[in-house]
């Protein structure tokens, strides 16, 4: 019987099958940040098991609150920093080199097709964009991952979503994933893998594929997955060129992680995006989506462009394209957070930062900060944010605040007008 991508990865990493449907997998990488890892580190110390399974396979970063905003966050950073030094974790990224984990680690070449990855962060599903099985876990799973290099999962059922048609101008990966979450519901893929396939995905850059996979968890999915192809190869080539004779050998190796033609899916869905419009969320659940034009009158107080969903260079280019030559409305605050130092540098070199600053945006250092209301852009009670992030939960960016999720293009256009609005990049297709 044919296998899905996740089934192939499970079958190549299984070390035990302790019960029906429970599969203990060997991990290729364990990613760590300063919010969920310190408790695991302290627990390992308390148990007398302060060890790491393989210091080369552990990658760590301080990203959620950086630079530290108070004594508590300074202490979280210190626990992670001291631990990384103690165990000689080479790939530890501190201030000056740090960025948002789900953008930084792919950028460093740490994610490969067919890999198994866990992190104490629900948006770990982002890395499925490379054809890896990457899952968010809690601190206990992380702790066992750190000292044993294993994690237990249920055998995955997969939903395959074939994204067909062609995207209209001004409609982006963010709109596609919002439309898919709206279709599946916040519980529609719980305990399942979502394979994103079809011509629209094939045409997407890695940045766009990461945006797509990033929000798979908002439909409950364990991981999103794209098939590793020529685009994946070109992105990874600088990191893997010593491992393969040439690009075609590498591509052949990647194709081992494509699904078999007779793979069995829990559901196969065709999702045609030819008539898709830019979308925005309303309410407090990410499956509550509407076309931007239906939310047009919504006044906003803050615009946030950044996060592991939309803080990549492509996102900044699109937002800058909309903002160029404009000022943001004088009753809104604009905040842009490039997701890594490399992206920040690229944006400077390309003149994007001047466009943001001329428009009236505040540019912050790379951090998760405002997305979960921890720093650099917390909302006051009753305030409304147009945000390129991934969660519109009540209170997420600040108690009593309201979040509308949207693409960077829509966020930039909304910053100029002061209310939610479509960007001029959007051109409706004629039926």
């Amino acid at each position, binding site marked *: 019987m044919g296998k899905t991508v996740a089934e192939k990865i499970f079958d190549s990493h299984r070390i035990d099958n302790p019960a029906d449907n429970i599969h203990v997998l060997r991990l290729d990488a364990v990613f760590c940040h300063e919010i*969920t890892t310190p*408790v695991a580190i302290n627990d390992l110390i308390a148990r007398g098991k302060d060890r790491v399974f393989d210091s080369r396979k552990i990658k760590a970063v301080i990203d959620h609150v950086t630079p530290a905003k108070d004594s508590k966050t300074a202490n979280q950073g210190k626990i992670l920093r001291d631990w990384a030094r103690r165990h000689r974790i080479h790939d530890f990224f501190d201030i000056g080199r740090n960025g948002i984990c789900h953008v930084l680690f792919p950028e460093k070449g740490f994610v490969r097709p067919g890999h198994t990855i866990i992190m104490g*962060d629900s948006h770990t599903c982002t890395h499925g964009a490379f054809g890896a099985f990457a899952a968010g876990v809690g601190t*206990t799973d992380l702790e066992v991952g750190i000292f*044993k290099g294993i994690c237990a999962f249920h055998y995955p059922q997969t939903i395959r979503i074939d994204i067909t048609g062609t995207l209209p101008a001004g409609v982006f990966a963010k709109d596609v994933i919002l439309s898919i979450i709206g279709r599946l519901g916040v519980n529609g893929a719980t305990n399942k893998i979502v394979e994103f396939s079809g011509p629209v995905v094939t045409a997407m850059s890695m940045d766009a594929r990461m945006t797509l996979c990033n929000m798979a968890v908002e439909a409950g999915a364990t991981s999103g997955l794209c098939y590793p192809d020529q685009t994946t190869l070109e992105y990874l080539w600088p990191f893997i060129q010593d491992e393969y004779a040439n690009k075609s050998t590498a591509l052949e190796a990647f194709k081992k992680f494509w699904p078999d033609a007779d793979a069995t899916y829990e559901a196969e869905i065709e999702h045609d995006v030819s008539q898709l419009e830019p979308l925005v969320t309303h309410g*407090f*659940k990410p499956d509550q989506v509407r076309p931007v034009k239906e939310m047009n009158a919504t006044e906003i107080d803050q615009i946030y462009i950044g996060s592991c969903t939309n803080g990549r260079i492509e996102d900044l280019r699109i937002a800058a394209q909309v903002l160029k030559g404009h000022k943001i409305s004088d009753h809104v605050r604009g905040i842009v957070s490039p997701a890594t130092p490399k992206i920040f540098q690229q944006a400077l070199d390309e003149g994007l930062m001047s466009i943001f600053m001329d428009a009236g945006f505040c540019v912050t250092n790379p951090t998760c900060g405002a997305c979960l209301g*921890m720093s650099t852009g917390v909302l006051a009670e009753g305030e409304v944010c147009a945000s390129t992030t991934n969660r519109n939960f009540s*209170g997420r960016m600040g108690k009593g605040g309201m979040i509308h999720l949207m693409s960077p293009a829509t966020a930039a256009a909304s910053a100029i007008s002061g209310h939610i609005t479509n960007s001029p990049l959007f051109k409706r297709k004629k039926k």
Partner: protein
Amino acid sequence: MKSFSGKALFLDRADINTDEIIAARYLTEISKVALGAHLFEDITLDGFDMSRDIPGKNVIISRANFGCGSSREHAPWALEANAINLVIAESFARIFRQNMFNCGMLAVELPVSTIDHLFQSHANQETIVTTHLEKQLLIIETGQIKEEINFPLSDFDRALVEAGGWVEYADSHY
């Protein structure tokens, strides 16, 4: 092994997320106990009053997709800090459910009809849940009403609860 019995707190809404269970502003805490006072501080639920409704409760009964959102294990820890070790719901988000068992806590899924019945017959009154893990049996008592409900529990999940969590289990098996 933890205790899985006591007074029930009914939370009548689907999709209660981990930001509602424990808000991100408290993720800077590195002790589990410190989270206890902030359980459900941001929940959107009509009539809910955390200072009135949480104290003295040991079991939560809720609807579908409980614990969706973030991976933060701070959510089960905030429950544990309030002596709540059992959540009964129609369904759970994957990471939250795994975090519960990884901590040696219990996440029990019951069919929607049973959950509907529990809300209809027991909510808004003092309800005591007694759990018999070995029999996979819940005894639900509200005033004169007393009923027994069987619940599913896989051997692996039982092993985690009995071991006290995944760290103990993994350390003795791998």
